[in-house]
């Protein structure tokens, strides 16, 4: 680990100020990606600004149209919540291992936008809204590429609002080593249509329009069984070729729909 200045933010404004004042600062939420990266000397920052002291970024609150999850809410808290959609709780319960789930946060995960993370599938699949200190961003606009989001410099996620689905399910094929999603598919029947979001398969979470329209007409695993995505542009590594990942998108979509009931 390279040397850095550790700073603990007392409020959102304080965090923004500290980040602005640092020459090359970064934010620490749950630290499940940042800390290992620092320890392996794969990243170096002048300042690490710890958000964990900002209490009002943590917690789950349900209201009429859905549920809002604070950015610093731990995966284990989402997994244990009766207020979030069951598919979201199940997804959170399958992230990493118990240590990761008890440290890692929703905001940290989606800000990092790892192409193989689970949460982006739920955020996009449920059509959630990402709330920041500056604005609200629709999920469709939030994830912009490999480890890329719509967040600007000095912009910090405060919470994510998930609308309530009529039906939703998540199925993932884990990378056998890291247990990240090699392919994870979140399928949801929302009040305004069906959404199918795929994580792990490509450089960034994406929707599958053909599956969404098929499911809109016939919400069943069979409806997506014959729909395959192109392998072009999908991820390929020693665990799975693009062709295999493309195949798994269909298999996991079927299982996600089946899990949704």
């Amino acid at each position, binding site marked *: *680990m*390279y*040397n850095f200045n550790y700073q603990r933010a007392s409020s959102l404004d304080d965090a923004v100020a500290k980040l602005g004042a640092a020459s090359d600062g970064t934010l620490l939420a749950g630290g499940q990606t940042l800390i290992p990266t620092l320890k*392996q*000397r794969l990243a170096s920052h002048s300042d690490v600004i710890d958000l964990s002291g900002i209490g009002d970024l943590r917690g789950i609150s349900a209201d009429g149209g859905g549920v809002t999850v604070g950015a610093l809410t731990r995966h284990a808290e989402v997994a244990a919540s009766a207020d979030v959609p069951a598919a979201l709780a199940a997804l959170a319960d399958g992230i990493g291992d118990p240590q990761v789930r008890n440290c890692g946060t929703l905001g940290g995960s989606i800000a990092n936008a790892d192409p193989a993370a689970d949460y982006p599938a739920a955020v996009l699949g449920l059509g959630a809204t990402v709330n920041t200190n500056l604005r609200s961003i629709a999920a469709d606009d939030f994830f912009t590429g490999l480890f890329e989001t719509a967040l600007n410099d000095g912009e910090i996620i405060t919470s994510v609002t998930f609308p309530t689905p009529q039906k939703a399910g998540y199925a993932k*094929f884990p990378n*056998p*080593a*890291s247990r990240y999603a090699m392919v994870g598919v979140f399928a949801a029947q929302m009040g305004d249509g069906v959404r199918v979001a795929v994580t792990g398969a490509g450089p960034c979470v994406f929707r599958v329009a053909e599956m969404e329209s098929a499911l809109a007409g016939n919400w069943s695993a069979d409806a997506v069984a014959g729909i395959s995505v192109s392998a072009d542009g999908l991820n390929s*590594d*020693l*665990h*799975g*070729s693009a062709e*295999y990942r493309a*195949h*798994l998108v269909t*298999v996991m979509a079927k299982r996600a729909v089946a899990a949704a009931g």
Partner: protein
Amino acid sequence: MAENGIGASLKRKEDPRLLLGKGSYVDDINRPGQAYAAFVRSPHAHANIKSINSTAAAAAPGVVAIFTGDDMAADEVGPLICGWAISSKDGSPMNMPHHTCLAQGKVTYVGDHVAIVIADTQEQAKDAAELVEVDYEELSAVVGTADADAAGAPQLHENAPNNTCFDWHLADNKADVDAAFAGAAHVTKLDILNNRLVPNAMEPRAAVGDYERSTDSLTLYTTSQNPHVARLVLSAFFGIAPEHKLRVVAPDVGGGFGSKIYVYSEETACLWAARKIDRAVKWTADRAESFVSDAHGRDHVTTVELALDGDAKFLAMRCSTKANLGGYMSLFSSAVPTYMYATLLAGQYTTPQIYAEVKTVFTNTTPVDAYRGAGRPEATYALERVVEAAARELNIDPAELRRRNLIQPDQFPYETPVVHTYDCGDYGASLDKAIEIADYAGFAARRDQSKAGGKLRGIGFSNYIEACGIAPSAAVGALGGGVGLWEAAQVRFNPTGNVTVFTGTHAHGQGHETAFAQVVADQLGVPVENVEVVHGDTDKGPFGMGTYGSRSIAVGGSAIVKAGEKIIAKGRKIAAHLLEAAEDDIEFTDGNFTVAGTDKALNIGEVAFAAYVPHNYPEGVEPGLDESAFYDPLNFSFPSGTHICEVEVDPDTGTVEIVNYTAVDDFGTLINPMIVAGQVHGGIVQGVGQALTEGAAYDPDSGQLVNGSFMDYTMPRADNVPSFNIDTTETPSPLNPLGVKGCGEAGAIAAPAAVMNAITDALGTENIDMPATPEKVWRAAQAAG
């Protein structure tokens, strides 16, 4: 039998200490004023070093010293060694490259050692190591086993043309074997890969080199399976210090699996540097370093052929293997793919003729050495895959084909055509018991049930044999080994009657502190809690050869028994004197010396006290009760057994679930069945790891290890395996005083073949290699339809 003696499933004495964080590992050891080392490692798989500039690094905060290969050469530090000489078919000696501790002029794999940077703190050492400027001239790399000796391949070592170390065969009998094949009714042939594994012991390697000015002596604290051998190598071959001026301590060590046999560059450099800077030097590997610098295992490419007659009796076998040595030779790297591999190809069968040839090649990869099983898993895998394939081709039940060819209990001692003479065994008994436990008869119904659920079910056998308890020194020497493989023990009664046992073996997870204490308790009638087993410090116990090859109980345990026999013999003299009886009339049972036919008796503790306070003592007998023994085994021991694996394959994803795993092993006498069960469990899981998940992946162009972290290298986990059904049969070895055979490697030897035979059964194709990852299984399922 003494309470908690041989056969008792006693909980391990060492576990409370280790589980509660009270263990003392090398990284827990800190010496006054110690500095920290970091290594500059090659980022390239193959390169010439044009220059090294450490000016900037030397000026970095906290830096104490920076040394390169030239500095060590100036001090005449000897090259790293290989301990086993192998000759090629034509009689020429193996081509062993010069392997300096720190590279001089050339690097041959990513992670190769270029310089040692020593600083006041670990982070300062790492920071400064990044500032060492090495000017590399990059060279093309070769990493694949199969093509390493191809024309035009990049050449690693001047003295190893075509990257070949040796081209060996076990015997010059190819013509005879070919003739047997020509007359065969059926021949089964397979091309198989044995994947390269990264050992990944839980504790990374570590070293603290310490210099004592007042005595001009050195101490090395190191993660070693064989501290005495390490001292010998550091003294006699590297010239770091004479043996009597060097102490090597291997304290608690968290797993070895063979990877901590070798004496590596890191501990050598730390020890040497400690005297140079007159400060202790500490280094602990991080996991990334472990991946590229711990000796890897396996990495064979093999063609195996089995010839059968019209009754499906095995007539002959041919086995041709190319084995990858990596960038340099390692300590046992020549022996593992030869005398620990080809000599096991008879397995449990009466195959009368076997031809085995092995070519070893250098590649731009991490050096390969012994890894749990070391040659024997590779042999079992080749043999049991081809036997299973033959059964399928001939449409004979695989259990029946094996049974038809098994060596029978009345044929022992049995001389195989590949060197070994097996001492004892009842292979059919293990096979029958395993078949019953696995409910083989019910498999067809279970397969139908799986099919109805859209899954493919398969079952696979592995009848393994291993040569353990290494080994008779004369036999080792005759086959090219550079050492004797006896073992030593010292049994010391303390005046108050408790016992300290010193062993030359080393425990790094095997539970010796418990099992060896049980042996002593059983023999000498002392409560097991009054027996302390001491190992791992060359200043404490007798010289010993260490722990590997499932040798500790068979060889080290036998040495303890021999020392115990001397204790009893001496105690008998003392007791006879005190009891005023003839020595021949003294019987020793359950810790008591008794005058035969009377109730006159002395406990061994009383005899020990008398030996240390010899006021009333037999004439001519030395005081004290402290005996040593050296035990050279008469033969290898030959654990064997049958493992049966049942898998269910999801053809949609290629996921393999092991739904049932049965192991019936014959380890001879069991000292502690619970420890044995733990060893079997761990071994099977490592074997399952090889079959399903593990495998070092090198980029063929750059030579980079692609999966050099746990994020990409798939260690087996609890959810990869079911609850095992394990049982034993028991044919005690007649060749050692305990009747034991060794149990540490069996699971890792048997499991890969059992798992892969189950998968190939489920898929209906032999065309899949380890590790059977989901994508490979999915593709094989697609291809097999």
